[in-house]
């Protein structure tokens, strides 16, 4: 570091300047906005959650299980996703399907989102296109670790995000927050 950097005060002032610059710019815009300039954006800040940053179509969001026409899961419990999952957060238990052409069906399909790293390998590995990460849902939380485990029923109920990237399904309520 040179002397000017080591002097410290200069860097502090430049940082304060940046913050203050944003503050006054936002304040000016807010005043203009409230004085009737409706076309002026209120602030450079995105007003989450009313306002949302546009999501890239390839973004990996909360998983969902794809349904067949009759509403049963498309998943055949082949364990490819469970096998490839680097976080080991998928728990599948296989069962016999009454139709021998389908043969195999998951009786349990849990994803522990507390462990998931959102790598998308499960989607990649699935030979049946039965799991996708296109719900657009990014906000899921829980007060306990157990609440982060999403079951087959919860994952089957989810819909893909709309064309604007907005989630079409409500955020699933974790088990520990259900009334």
């Amino acid at each position, binding site marked *: 570091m040179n002397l000017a950097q080591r002097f410290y005060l200069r860097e502090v002032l430049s940082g304060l300047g940046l913050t203050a610059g944003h503050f006054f710019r936002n304040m000016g815009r807010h005043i203009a906005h409230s004085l009737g300039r409706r076309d002026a954006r209120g602030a450079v800040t995105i007003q989450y959650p009313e306002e949302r940053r546009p999501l890239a179509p390839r973004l990996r969001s909360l998983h969902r299980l794809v349904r067949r026409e009759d509403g049963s899961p498309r998943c*055949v*419990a*082949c*364990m*490819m996703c*469970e*096998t490839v999952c680097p976080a080991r957060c998928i*728990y599948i*238990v*296989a*069962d*016999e399907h009454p139709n*021998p*052409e*389908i*043969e*195999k069906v998951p009786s*349990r399909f849990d994803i522990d989102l507390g462990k998931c790293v959102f790598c998308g390998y499960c989607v990649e590995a699935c*030979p*049946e296109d039965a799991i996708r990460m296109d719900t657009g849902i990014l906000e899921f939380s829980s007060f306990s670790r157990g609440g982060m485990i999403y079951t087959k029923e919860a994952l089957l109920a989810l819909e893909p995000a709309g064309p604007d990237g907005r989630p079409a399904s409500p955020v699933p309520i974790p088990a520990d927050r259900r009334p």
Partner: protein
Amino acid sequence: MPKLTIDGKEIEVAPGTNLIEAARQLGIEIPHYCYHPGLSIAGQCRLCMVDIEKAPRPTIACNTQAADGMVVATQTERVKETQRSIMEFHLINHPLDCPVCDQAGECWLQIYYMKYGLYDPRMVDEKVHKPKAVPLGPHVMLDAERCILCSRCVRFCDEITGTGELGIFHRGDQSEIGLFPGRDLENKYSGNVVDICPVGALTDRDFRFQVRVWYLDTAKSICPGCARGCNIDVHVNRRRPHHAGGKRVARLKPRFNAEVNKWWLCDEGRYGYGFVDDASRVTTPVWRSEPVPWDTAIAEVTRALGRHAPDAVGVVASPKMPNEDLMAVRRLAEALGTRQVGFKVPPRTPGDQDDLLIRADKNPNTRAAELIGLDGDVAGILTAARSGRIKALWVFGHDLFDSAWLESDVTLALGALETLIFTGTNAGRTSALAHLVLPATAWVERDGTFTNWEGRVQRFRPAVEPLGEALPEWDIVGRVLGMLGHAASATRAEHWFVDLAANVEAFRGMTYQSIGETGRMTQ
């Protein structure tokens, strides 16, 4: 002895050896589906093609006996092209349902496609559809679509069991494996057709959809189901505890031993492991219905045994216990000075026997218990208990109610005891009456050796961790011996085997190393 050359390497083989076996001896793999060393030669799959010098076209290796001066090539372009074409033929009507197929991961179509196939498929027509998920018997499920008609299962039922339930029906691409009318695949060896099926056509109903095979670990072991001592591999699921309902032992598979079971295993042995993960397992020492730490339990055992005159203490060992543990029991009896030691409890129903594998004696280690000298009169011990001459009894493994004896006699005998100690894997009616219950490990949870009916000493290895606080019987007995003031330095089963090999004539000179993979005969 014919001397031939395969891929430039010379080898001399026994007369009558075919080219697949000759190449195997050189470490050269010739792919095959229908050939099995334990069955007759069918020549159905045509995959084992090799080039033989002066022969006009590739020849099947399975049905060609090695001849003197033969020059065989397995890697020529012509052979590779033939193998590729035959793989394409086999897979024409094979469904691409590997994800739901239980064989995936140990399927020879998958393995050989990656090694010898890798062609671009030219099949454009609809595949032929056949019945799926058809139960053939209590243990075997058929998927006719996946079958490549190698006929191994048909030959097994014709040649090995002689029951002949299976056949190939219809013609051409409509051919399928099936049962003869009115038959069920319910012979005592039906599980073997699953092992020899190279594809996913025959799968195990017991194992079906329980665990994917790539999650399994394996350990070499010995079947404890009867006195034959068939060599097996224990497949355990330790990586995915939520699969198979938490059962750790997923399946037993036969392991080749030319002297004992060859390639086979009976169904009773194959499906006889259920007790290992059963809810009735004892997992913690219990003293007067209260769980106690091991130290307390051992102290109580020592107190109960030491309180009485030597011959007021009885020990009933079990022929299901390994050699090491039986030796420990003998040392215990010597330390206590009691002669009231026995192990033979007559079964309620006499065991069945055949001339293939199954032995009437359903215990894996009766021979060793006799050789080690534990063969006393158990009925006499019970009579002595009833008349009060025996005050403390230590029962290993047996449920004495599950025997040919009258229930009332056993109840009276056990009821008259001052102390009944039970050591075993699972709770039963004897353990319910016991004052002390000491949990023992199942055979898959520990190291040890069994001596089969012929006197062949064979080693088994641990496949899973002991359940709960269970200990091997040699360890329990060793701790009691230590409390009784005897130098019990054994910290491994092998130490007891050293004692056994040094002091029992039949086992003299044996070590775990000299037993090896195929076992060693007692003298």
